[in-house]
């Protein structure tokens, strides 16, 4: 057992503690450095993870497994966390609770990373809760703002309910198989297939993870929370914590409960269609950009869920790649929104809806970098070629066709086309609707985060091979046979 493989998590833990402790002794004005510290820690963790790519190991009596899948998702989480941290430097400027903000963010990331490498449902559940609990407070970070508070409340309430459902479901799994180890469950899942409780457990687990992934009808907190939370936190939720739900579902369903494939495939098929359609249709009429992005995030989750239905290595690879791409795209889009919100609020503190579409008017002139990045992100989300979104959709949708799920692919494709409408509308507001407000200087941290995200989005779009390769490798962990 090589503890070095845990180095990223440990680094993050140290970073989180360091941020917390150092923050106590810093004056408000100097707390800015905490953000840099946190970013640095995340960057180191990212570097460590990347450097350990390709190794496979299990640790701590098989409760953790380091493999391509976990590495891949760790990178996703770290990247999202990095974007979150960098963007938050500006957001938390002048706030006396900067240390809490960053350490909560870092801890949440640790939770996500443990979910990615969990090989035991107990680890998975607790890490899952870590990520949730840390983000509850983040969502309500603007505690004097009713929206933020409401967002936190809803997130928390539905989160607890889901945790209970999840735990309830896990208890049945445990009861039928007598173990919490994922490989052991897979070996002893025969019982679950023959008994009706198997289905109950599956649906309960779907509900539990579906809350994080924001699948219809477990999604209802998501638009409210994404809208109400600080935008940077929304980026962490939508881009990071959502992926955590996905990787957890990958592990639990595809690895542990593969015997119950028939049941959960059907569940996911229904939910995928519902989710993408509902998300896209409702997003059409949104005027709050964050809420629109939340619904779009629903739709994207619906696409990724298709991987569960199709269940070929290529589809899973596509889903995994999509997760990474979505991380970049959605985090980037929320951060761009955060920049706009920041700009709007710095002009007038009392604006009711700082993320209203009207505030995006003429953004192309006012904040050119932000507007351009936002354009790239929304087009990527819509699946325009040479972006990450297209590459992922290409792999995912094409594998859907390959596996013979033409109907699903058609629905997904039509949805994808529909989504273009509301994405294009954002672009329209940014570039085509003039405003008399002048150009503003774009806050540097936001810009850096945006540039990183843009680079990520375009890199996956252009230089796809390594990403596709690693996604496929990760998928092989789930289905060892291969195509």
């Amino acid at each position, binding site marked *: 057992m090589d503890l070095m493989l845990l180095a990223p998590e440990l680094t993050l833990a140290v970073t989180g503690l360091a941020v917390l402790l150092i923050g106590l002794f810093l004056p408000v004005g100097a707390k800015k450095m905490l953000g840099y510290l946190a970013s640095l820690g995340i960057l180191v963790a990212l570097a460590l993870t990347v450097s350990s790519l390709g190794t496979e190991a299990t640790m701590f009596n098989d409760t953790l497994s380091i493999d391509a899948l976990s590495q891949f998702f760790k990178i996703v989480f770290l990247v999202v966390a990095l974007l979150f941290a960098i963007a938050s430097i500006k957001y938390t400027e002048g706030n006396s609770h900067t240390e809490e903000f960053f350490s909560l963010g870092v801890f949440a990331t640790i939770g996500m990373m443990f979910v990615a490498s969990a090989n035991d449902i107990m680890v998975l559940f607790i890490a899952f809760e870590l990520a949730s609990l840390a983000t509850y407070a983040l969502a309500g970070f603007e505690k004097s703002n009713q929206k933020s508070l409401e967002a936190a409340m809803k997130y928390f309430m539905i989160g607890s309910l889901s945790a209970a459902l999840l735990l309830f479901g896990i208890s049945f799994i445990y009861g039928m198989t007598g173990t919490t180890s994922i490989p052991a469950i897979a070996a002893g899942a025969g019982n679950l297939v023959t008994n009706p409780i198997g289905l109950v457990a599956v649906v309960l687990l779907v509900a539990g993870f579906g809350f994080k992934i924001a699948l219809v009808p477990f999604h209802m907190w998501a638009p409210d929370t994404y809208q109400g939370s600080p935008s940077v936190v929304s980026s962490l939720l939508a881009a990071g914590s959502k992926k955590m739900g996905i990787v957890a579902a990958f592990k639990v369903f595809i690895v542990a409960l593969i015997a119950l494939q028939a049941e959960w495939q059907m569940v996911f098929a229904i939910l995928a269609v519902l989710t993408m359609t509902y998300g896209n249709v409702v997003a059409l009429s949104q005027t709050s950009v964050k809420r629109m992005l939340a619904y779009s995030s629903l739709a994207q989750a619906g696409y990724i869920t298709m991987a569960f239905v199709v269940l070929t290595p290529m589809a899973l690879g596509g889903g995994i790649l999509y997760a990474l791409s979505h991380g970049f795209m959605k985090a980037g889009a929320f951060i761009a929104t955060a920049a706009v919100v920041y700009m709007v609020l710095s002009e007038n503190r009392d604006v009711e809806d700082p993320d209203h579409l009207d505030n995006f008017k003429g953004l192309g002139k006012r904040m050119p970098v932000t507007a351009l990045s936002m354009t790239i992100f929304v*087009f990527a989300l819509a699946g*325009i*070629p*040479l972006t990450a979104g*297209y590459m992922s959709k*290409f*792999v995912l*949708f*094409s594998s859907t*066709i*390959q596996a013979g799920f*033409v109907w699903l*692919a*058609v629905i997904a*494709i*039509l949805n*994808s*086309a*529909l989504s*273009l*409408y509301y994405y*294009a*509308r954002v672009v*329209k507001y940014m*570039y*085509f609707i003039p405003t008399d407000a002048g150009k503003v200087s774009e806050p540097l941290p936001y810009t850096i985060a945006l540039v990183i995200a843009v680079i990520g989005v375009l890199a996956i779009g252009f230089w*796809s*091979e390594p990403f*596709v*390769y690693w996604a*496929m490798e990760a998928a092989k962990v789930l289905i060892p046979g291969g195509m």
Partner: protein
Amino acid sequence: MLPILSLIVLIPLLFAALTLFTKTKEQARVMALVATVAVLVLTLYMYINFDSTIADNQFEEIYQWVPSLGINYHLGVDGIGMPLILLNAIVLPFLILFTWNDDRKAPNRFYALILATEGAVIGVFAALDFFLFYIFWELTLIPLFFMVSIWGGPGKHHAAIKFFIYTHIASLVMLLGIFGLYFSAWEMTGTPSLDIPALLSQFQFIGSGVMKDLIFLALLFGFIVKIPVFPFHSWQPDAYTEAPTAGSVLFVMLKIGGYGIFKVILPLLPFTASPNLMITIMAALGAVSIIYGAFLALAQSDLKRMVAYSSVSHMGYVLLGAAGLVSLSVSGAMFQQFSHGLIMSIMFMACGVINTTAGTRIINDLGGLAQKMPKLAVIMVLTFMASLGLPGLSGFIAEVSVLAGSFVNLPSYVIIALLAIVITAAYHIWALQRAMFGVFNEKLGTIVDINGYQTLSMGIIAILIVYFGWNPSPVLDMMLTNSEQIISLMAVMGV
């Protein structure tokens, strides 16, 4: 060997990016002109070295891109793509010249979008990998969307969104077809590949007839919406009309739908499960578009909208000729694309000029413009004549080839198309008479003729129309070579 195709594709894209950073109109337009002229020179160089007697892809470049999915950076051009690249390369410099003295907001973005469209469109014609093909295909959407949205007419937002989503849906359906082809071939060969020639040749070995038909129809749908033909044309009049002049010309340059028909659809056609049904579908849509577009053009009161509908009518010939399955008709259909590109670009330029000088495009509000704009009148009369298929101008070569060739296999559809010719003449002549001739409408105020740049650009394209009307061989020969190859495929299958 110079990677000439890559250069032709990438130069405009690169210059588009550079143009974005220019500050003044002067810099932007010079930048755009340099890029387009460079493309023209390279294209001419390529054209000179192009062997029009063989139907193979030439100037091929291939590099691995995403090997795990079988995606390559594969460029190459054959007799189908070459004329269309040539068309773009020829028209674009003159389009830049045409807009030389225009004043508009954000000229740097304007020229950048023009260049980006050029690069993307040429990219479609040069791509020999479906992945690349689709990328360029979609890439054409974005600059045009911006073009319409920023500089368009009063209904620009609606038109832009409609165009964007409508054609995007079609593209996605086409993508589904590509996926089907991709995986069917993957299953048979065991290795993934998105190479266009390879996939086209493997289509015939797909076991399931339903699968074949589905793939074929999905691809066909994607292409005919882009062409566009009846009944999938409704994005087109709005988009063409609301777009700024340069945008309309770029739309006209967007011959990717027809290109897809020749490059992809026809090689697949004989191997579908029910080729005769497919031919009937294509021929019927083509013929109906011809007459439907003509009648609608007749009903329009807006000059530009009339031109837009006339485009529906003209593009019907492309589908009809392709369905005719005689080398003359197929090459005629290809030539129709080429000639239509030349003709329509002047038509839209003329509409643009009239709109800016007279302040309206409503035909009945104009009148007697020829007295004040003699140069424009000459060019317009010539172009309208070309558009209505007057012999001696390039449109006729295409139409007569399509009609004569298609009649062999599709007599009844050709008769429908023939009926439309009178209507076509009617709306052209009607519009000319109302707008250009007769008593000058004094309400229009002071009218000045087209300036030197506009005369130059429109004039040279007009001369090309005449030239290709008398000597189509420079581009028709290579089309013939390729269409004969396509037809020989048909003969093998006995279609």
